[in-house]
């Protein structure tokens, strides 16, 4: 096994573009973070911030063309996935890095029994026999909290409720004991009580298997509940990166601050929410300066012409804003 103190995943300066004849969109523009075993990194952002494209880049699931990773490194256990052969990346995918999506119905095969779908992965990656694979599928469903697991192996996806389907997806993702689970808005389509169940399940499985979790979400509450580290993305860039408690206690980037202020809470009642005027920029139009500047209440002249660098405020906290005076730079 590899060094346990080294990050299991290290994303460095990732850049992903979509190119068509008419325009080029830099969906992810220089994203970096590290993920350790047993840890949860939350990637937070609104639609179009690049959070999902970053995940698909790691998984090698983006269609090329139009998408292309044009720069950076994705080090999994020290090996750069971007330089590895398609065959070796395919072997890691599903086996050591698994991913679940927001809408489980679209990621399950509707005409295949659940048991077969889970068994397919373990047969492929672990070389188990039909009998062994079926047993494994049943124990995974049980672990994911599905009652009558043995019986339900024969059911089709439509026979499960939304929450149960997400459990099936989790069971399938865990089928090969992955080192990393990438969860893209795993509870967004679910009701709160079911969301609480699924988040609890993910935490339990994390404790049990020391699995590392990349949690992609726009729900600030879910971040507060789950994350150790948080990366806030805006227009393809990481605008702030900090340990979760630090980020909530001491947000530095104007976008992070407005984002946190714009969420209502069940514990406090504000007269009025702080809202961010305008909307995120259209990346196809090209961006000059800081992409948040048009919506920012604190912008200075420089923000409109020049994008700020990511400045370190401390060893673990950095933000991309001209107003921040960090250590060095």
């Amino acid at each position, binding site marked *: 096994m590899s060094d346990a103190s080294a990050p299991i995943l290290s994303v460095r300066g990732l850049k992903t573009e979509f190119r068509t004849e008419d325009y080029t969109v830099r969906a992810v523009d220089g994203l970096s973070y590290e993920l350790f075993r047993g840890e949860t990194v939350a990637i937070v952002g*609104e639609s179009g911030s690049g959070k999902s494209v970053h995940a698909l880049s790691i998984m090698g699931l983006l269609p090329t063309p139009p998408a292309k990773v044009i720069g950076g490194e994705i080090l999994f256990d020290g090996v750069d996935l971007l330089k590895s052969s398609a065959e070796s990346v395919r072997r890691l995918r599903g086996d050591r890095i698994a991913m679940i999506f927001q809408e489980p119905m679209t990621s399950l095969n509707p005409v295949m029994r659940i048991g077969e779908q889970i068994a397919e992965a373990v047969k492929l990656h672990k070389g188990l026999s039909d009998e062994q694979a079926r047993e494994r599928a049943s124990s995974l469903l049980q672990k994911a909290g599905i009652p009558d697991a043995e019986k339900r192996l024969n059911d089709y996806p439509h026979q499960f*409720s939304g929450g149960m389907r997400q459990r099936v997806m989790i069971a399938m993702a865990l089928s090969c004991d992955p080192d990393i689970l990438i969860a893209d808005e795993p509870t967004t389509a679910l009701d*709160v009580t079911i969301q609480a169940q699924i988040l609890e399940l993910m935490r339990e499985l994390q404790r049990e298997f020391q699995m590392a979790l990349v949690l992609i979400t726009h729900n600030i*509450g879910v971040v*507060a*509940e789950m994350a150790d580290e948080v990366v806030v993305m805006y227009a393809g860039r990481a605008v702030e990166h900090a340990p979760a408690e630090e980020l909530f206690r001491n947000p530095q980037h104007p976008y992070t601050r407005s984002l946190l202020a714009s969420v*209502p809470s*069940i514990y406090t009642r504000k007269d009025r929410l702080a*809202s961010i005027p305008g909307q*995120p920029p259209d990346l196809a139009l090209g961006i000059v300066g800081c992409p948040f500047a048009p919506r920012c209440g604190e912008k200075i002249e420089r923000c409109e012409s020049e994008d700020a660098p990511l400045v370190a405020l401390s060893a673990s906290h950095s933000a991309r804003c001209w107003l921040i005076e960090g250590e060095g730079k």
Partner: protein
Amino acid sequence: MSSPLLEVRGLKTHFSVAGETFFDPKRTVKAVDGISFSIEKGDTFGLIGESGCGKTTLGRTILALEERTEGDAIFEGRSIFALSKRELRGMRRNVQVIFQDPFSSLDPRMTVRQILEEPFEIHGILPSPRGRRERILELMDVVGLPAAHLERYPHQFSGGQRQRIGIARALALNPKLIVCDEPVSALDVSIQAQILNLLQDLQRDFDLTYLFIAHDFSVVRHLCNKVAVMYLGRIVELGETDALFENPQHPYTEALLSAVPVPDPSIEKRRKRILLTGDVPSPLNPPPGCPFHPRCRYAQDSCRVETPALNEVRDAHFAACPVLPFKDAPSAAALIEAE
């Protein structure tokens, strides 16, 4: 006290669906099953519950878009089910709706101008082109859409702007009540705050009353002054927002509140969570007795047999539970351990 703007009395909306096989008898889904509440002028009345609880069907029944099975809904003193076609049209001027999905609720082939003109055409109001145009530009201004976008199509707008178009359309005829069915749940966080603020401003400026249907507790807490919690077609708790959130009197509300993630890690770490097991039962086959009893941590033998009625358990605070309100139970707020 003046009479309420809208009063709902024992309303039931049942649907019959085919049996599992051809030979099975038809079955009944009791989507709305005996609901009563009233909304005063100026209220923002929150109707909250998980998917399938019947909140949207209730909203649609009040708009006379679904046929009621039993009970009544009285708007400004008249039963909406007793209105003639023409009277119903008049009622619809006063009761408008804003839908969840700003993508599917606007006709993609109509420009903003056409979308906003439609209500005037249907109701034969403001026939002069000049007057109509002025009113439309005024509406766009009120909801924060640039006048220059008058001739644009819905696909040229972002989700938040589309929701503004939907709001402008609902406001067009100066309604008294607006039914908002999950108006912000499809929007990004920063846009959600814009729309919630807009709804508050409009309420103040135009004396509006809202029936606000949502599944997001934080949004309801922020916006509403009264809340009803629904479970399987019934109201299980009803009260003033602060009282209900700070001191829930129904086990379902208590569990829901404890399940909502709070955007503050220091609270999250100290919070005790009540995890409900299992899913919401199928409304085709609801459990006997209290519909919540299979998931309830306070359930007693009687709960499996008797369906509890919605009773006033505190001042103006109603709950359909014979156990929790009479216990010295910690409220959800108290579930945060003291520092």
